[in-house]
């Protein structure tokens, strides 16, 4: 195989298996010059990558969920780490006016929220736009790398910012395999996350003109409610088509 055709072969790896087979076969059959063949294959790969971006889905997954959630979830990860550290430091407990059992409760509350937010965000990213997952991943990791670089708290490991990654990856994995959740499950998750957020909303410190950073985390419940909406819509659609079938029969 010549160097030119090696390049064609390499470029063709950007295509799906069957398409790669057909395209390489066509190029061999028509004895395309290697330069034109590389350009043809790269052109097709580029069209394939650009095609999904005509829809709103990759924009929602990447810029609506992955990028903003990464910032907020790093803050939430840090918050979980502080809640954990507080358990072993009586001064911090006293500062927060918490007893040890209530501090454990707060830690569990924060952990549940972090896992719920990360999982639902990951699920939406995975299920909404599978073909552009690479872009959503890049958009999630780029603020992470920036914050890891800028992290300057000596008593904490910088990797505590990334506590959200594991449940988020788990959510993406589930989202890739399923197109949506069942309505009942989605409702339970969304309601639990919302109810757990309410104590933060009504803690007495919140003012609309000086909202603390924690209130931004309300945005993290949106993926859970999006899942409720899609599950409800899927149920309504299947109900409608079921009724149509009955009428036609």
């Amino acid at each position, binding site marked *: 195989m010549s160097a030119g055709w090696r390049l064609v072969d390499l470029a063709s790896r950007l295509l799906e298996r*069957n*398409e790669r*087979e*057909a*395209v*390489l*076969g*066509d*190029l*061999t*059959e*028509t004895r395309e010059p290697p330069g034109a063949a590389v350009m*043809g*294959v790269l*052109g*097709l790969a*580029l*069209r*394939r990558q650009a*095609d999904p971006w005509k829809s709103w889905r990759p924009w929602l997954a990447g810029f609506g969920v992955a990028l903003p959630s990464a910032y907020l979830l790093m803050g939430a990860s840090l918050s979980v780490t502080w809640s954990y550290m507080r358990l072993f430091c009586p001064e911090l407990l006293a500062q927060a006016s918490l007893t040890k059992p209530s501090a454990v409760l707060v830690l569990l509350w924060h952990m549940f929220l972090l896992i719920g937010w990360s999982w639902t965000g990951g699920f939406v990213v995975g299920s909404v736009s599978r073909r552009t997952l690479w872009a959503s991943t890049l958009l999630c990791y780029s603020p992470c790398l920036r914050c890891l670089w800028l992290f300057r708290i000596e008593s904490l490991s910088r990797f505590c910012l990334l506590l959200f990654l594991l449940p988020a990856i788990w959510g993406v994995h589930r989202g890739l395999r399923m197109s949506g959740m069942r309505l009942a499950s989605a409702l339970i998750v969304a309601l639990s996350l919302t109810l757990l957020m309410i104590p933060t909303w009504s803690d007495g410190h919140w003012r609309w003109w000086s909202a603390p950073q924690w209130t931004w985390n309300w945005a993290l419940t949106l993926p859970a409610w999006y899942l409720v909406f899609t599950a409800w819509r899927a149920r309504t659609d299947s109900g409608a088509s079921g009724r149509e079938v009955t009428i036609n029969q």
Partner: protein
Amino acid sequence: MLGEFEYLLITAAAGLGDHAYGAAIREEIETTTGRRCSIGALYTTIDRLESKGFLITWMGEATAQRGGRAKRMVRLTPDGVHAAKDFYKAVTRISRNASWTSNRIGGSSL
């Protein structure tokens, strides 16, 4: 309604019949129109037409001429034939009074 390139592709596939596959369709379009047809345009259009239900495709046999690689075979569906006929009729109708058509009604050709 079909686009111009979609019509060319469907018509080339119809002409090739059971021998319609990527390279053959591409060669047919290039030979008859004298225009270059890129692999990217060909395969993305085949996919679009397939998603509209105008074509079906499947992986065919591999030949030595193709370095042992399979062909992506193409066949028109009745919907595809219908869409191509509609396009052809529309082009014929809109062209009937144009100066370059040989059977122009009530006018001399240039």
